[in-house]
Structure formats: C-alpha cells, structure tokens
C-alpha cells in the first residue's frame, strides 16, 4: 500500500502545505510518493525529494501542467492513482480545484478537508462551517482526500533522500487555457502559516485604517487577515479573508479587531491556540470564543497595544 501526495507549488517554491499533507500521509501509514506536476519544475522535484519520509518523487514536467489546470492535471493524477491506495492533496484552491475531478474520473467519492486520521479508512472532517465534526469511513478502492493543513503538524522539509523519477501524462486536454494571474504582493508571513495573525473587520471603517493593523503586525511578525465584511467593503483584497469561504488558520495567537464573530468567520479561526478580541460591543459573539477580550475603541487600543508589545 502506497500513498500518493500531490505537491503544492507555484513552479518556484514548494508550498509549506505539502509538508502538512505528507504528515497526514504518514499518519495513514505506508510508502509515501510525491507527484510534482508543473512546467520547469525540476527544482521542486529536488526539494520534494528532501522531505522527511518521502520514498519516491514523480516529476511530470510539461508546459500543459504549468498552471495546474484541472482539465490537464486530473487525467495525469487519475492515471497514476491506480497504483495507490490513497491520493492526497492539500485543501488549497489548487487541490480543491483538481482533486474532485480526479475522484470522479476514478469513480470514487472524495473526502474533503480532513483534520484527523483515525485509521487508513476512517477520517475526521468538519461540516456545517466547523459546527460539527463528522467521523467518516470510506470503502472506496482508492481514497481521494484533501487535507486541511492546519489539522496536521508539518514534517521536516529536510532529511529525506527520495529517488526522483520522470513521468508523463496525456498533456493538454485542449479545452482550457491560462490567460493571466494577478497576485497580491505582501512582505508579511503567509496567512495560513503565520504564528500570529492580526485580523480586521468592518469595525476598521475603511482600508486606510488597516495601516494600524499592518504596523502592529510588523512589530509582532504577524500576518494580517480580514473578515468577509472587510473584504466585501473593499478595505482589503479577498485573499486576506479568513473564514468558511476564505482561508482556514490556526495560529498561536489570533487577534480579532472590530470583528463581530459570525459563525462563517469563526469557522476559519476557532482552532487558534489563543484568541484575543478587541471590540467596542461587549455583546459581540466573538467574546464567546476569545480567551482575552478587551472592550473599547480600537483606534485607541491599537496604538497603545503597538507601543506595549
């Protein structure tokens, strides 16, 4: 029984979420192989070979896999999957995009965003925006799974010495093409990997006021997140959104500023180790999950907080 893990990368660096996914594979048990599909992704293949616990790396280097278009990548993965008991990918927008397509090609159900491995066929996953945790058992011959990175501690990126093998698939399916990409630039740590996250909501009032959060975050070495209200109001770009429909984070410290705490937002951050809420409304639901709450005007609190930390 071997497990195939699909590497998450952008053709330049191997994403940290791959390490969490390998950790989930390790918890299932078995030989772990990693597939790197991309265009000019040889260096990613070498990085993947160094991951602790990985025994083989498959590299599919083809222009058709450059932006991991699901129409092209899914047939490649489905073709390889027949030799494996489990196929795992991180529950990133990429993994969520191609994995169900792989599952349907293999005619098996998929398990989305598992947070724990009970045994090789039994897993835990959150449903209803994290308000319930389901334990599910799969009898599918090939288990196609996406892994919520925050549910697993990453394995070491170094220490492995896997063999690297070139593989090829059917290439371009010819039904879709990549046009362009617009990536938000940020010098701060990545939201899903940060130890500390400072998030702002509608209470920030405008995008300009987010500078208070940025300067606090820079002092703490934190990433900056936002609630859906702040994104919809145009204060910040949507890739900063934390919640059921945005990113799921579980940092050591989560500071929610001017966020009421709707269940959709809590779904994205309630596994944080320590939650701090700063809100002027003492009835705000966020205080029900906060370890430390401070009621008051955020525009007075934030500068004072920045000075003291």
């Amino acid at each position, binding site marked *: 029984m071997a497990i195939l893990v699909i590497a998450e990368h952008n053709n330049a660096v191997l994403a940290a979420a791959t390490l969490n996914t390998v950790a989930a594979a390790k918890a299932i048990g078995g030989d772990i192989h990693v597939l790197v599909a991309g265009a000019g992704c040889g260096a990613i293949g070498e990085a993947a070979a160094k991951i602790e616990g990985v025994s083989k790396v498959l590299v599919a280097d083809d222009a058709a896999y450059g932006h991991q278009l*699901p129409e092209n990548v899914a047939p490649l993965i489905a073709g390889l999957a027949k030799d494996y008991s489990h196929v795992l990918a991180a529950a990133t927008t990429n993994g969520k995009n191609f994995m*169900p397509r792989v*599952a*349907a090609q293999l005619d*098996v159900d998929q398990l989305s965003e598992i947070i724990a491995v009970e045994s090789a066929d039994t897993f835990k996953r959150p449903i*209803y925006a994290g308000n319930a945790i389901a334990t599910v058992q799969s009898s599918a011959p090939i288990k196609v799974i996406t892994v919520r990175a925050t549910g697993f501690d990453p394995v070491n990126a170094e220490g492995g010495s896997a063999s690297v093998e070139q593989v090829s698939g059917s290439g371009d399916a010819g039904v*879709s093409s990549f046009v362009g990409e617009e990536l938000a630039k940020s010098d701060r740590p990545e939201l899903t990997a940060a130890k500390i996250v400072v998030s702002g909501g509608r209470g920030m009032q405008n995008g300009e006021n987010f500078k208070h959060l940025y300067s606090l975050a820079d002092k703490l070495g934190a990433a900056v997140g936002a609630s859906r209200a702040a994104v919809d109001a145009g204060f910040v770009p949507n890739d900063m959104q934390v919640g059921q429909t945005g990113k799921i984070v579980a940092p050591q*410290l989560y500071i929610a500023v001017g966020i009421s705490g709707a269940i959709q937002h809590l779904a994205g951050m309630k596994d944080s180790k320590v939650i701090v809420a700063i809100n002027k409304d003492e009835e705000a639901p966020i205080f029900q999950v906060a370890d430390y709450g401070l009621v008051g005007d955020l525009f007075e609190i934030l500068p*004072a907080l920045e000075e003291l930390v």
Partner: protein
Amino acid sequence: MKILVAVKRVVDYNVKVRVKADNSGVDLANVKMSMNPFCEIAVEEAVRLKEKGVASEIVVVSIGPTAAQEQLRTALALGADRGVLVESSEELNSLAVAKLLKAVVDKEQPQLVILGKQAIDSDNNQTGQMLGALTGFAQGTFASKVEVEGDKVKVEREIDGGAQTVLLNLPAIVTTDLRLNEPRYASLPNIMKAKKKPLEVVTPDALGVTVTSTVKTLKVEAPAARSAGIKVKSVAELVEKLKNEAKVI
C-alpha cells in the same frame, strides 16, 4: 444559449446547528431551510447573462427531497424559466449528485452549467469539478467574473494568492465564489408568477442513475468547546497576560 443552474436546499446560513445527542448527525427538525448562498449567486449570474442577451433559457435543477421544490420556486421567482427536481429522500454524496446532474446535462444540452462552489452543510466543494470530469467539460471554479466571448467563456477565479484568469471552451462549468455578484431579492409579483412556471419532477431511476456511496458517516460530534475566556480591563493587562500567562508573544 441555454444555461443550467444547480441549486441545493440547505439549512439557513444564519442557523447555529446542533449535533444530535446520539451523535448520528445534525438536528435538522424544525430548522429554517433556504437555498445555499452560493447557489443564489449562481442563479443571479445566469439571470444577468439572460438580461445581457447571452442566455436564452435558464433551467434550474435541484436534487433532493420533495421540499426542495421551494428552492426551485425561489429560483424561478428570481428569473429562471423552468425547474427540474430529481427527487431523492436519501442523503446523496457529491459524486452521486454529479452523476445525476450529468444525466440532466445529457438531456438538456446546456452550453453553460453554473453551480455554487460549495454547499454550506457538507462543505465538500466537489460537485462542479466532478461534473466536469463526467462531462469532459472545462471548469472555472471559484469564479469572481464570467464573460462569454463567442464559443468560449473567460472566467476570473479566486485563488490563494490573488486572482487567476482562464479561458474555457463551451460547453463549460462554472462554480461561483462570493464576490461574483450580489443576488437580488424575489419580488412578490415574481413569486406569484413563479408558481405558474413549469417544474418537472423525475426520479434517479428515470434518469438511469443508481446512487451508491462508499462513504459512511460513523458519528457526528460537536467540536471541542473553547473554555470561557476573560475580559481584561486595559491594554497593559492584555499584553501582560499574553506575555506571562499565554506566553504567545
């Protein structure tokens, strides 16, 4: 062109669900049900494409219990032309739903299929992609912008680092993200008119699809509750607690 929109009846997003005492599932008795919010966005997008003259007919389909007719009527009141209910009292997995939708696609031959990116009950985020695999159509998931250009559709997608644009051959599948549009409300006259629009009810058997599942839910539990926190009086106290008690900064 003809557009097929899939909608799902789910527990209303404002309801705080409770897990049943016997851990068999979530208590849905006497809970308000609504159209899944992402499906509302899908219906809205189809109606806008019709208003722009791109779409000629909108067929809305739901797979679920008899009561899902309510959600189909809502979609009809918002501007869909006719409804199809694939009636099934069982709880179906995404793959089964995708297979049923494939049968409807084969029958209706739409140029564009629009679905929500995920249902807020199962949080699976699978059906659209699976339908893509079964039909062989290209997929534009997590769409924040959709433009039909001749025999292709340009889809701007929300991805982890920002936005990505892809060009798909028609027929294609689009799944909606939150920022694609703001759904309208159904007006009372339109709700009345929707009652007269055609709504066909079929069974999975009639579509020639057998629904099986390889996934069994063993139990459903409430998530671990967080222990009650405290309210601090001042910023100084907060920083002191974070440094010395929680030791996180």
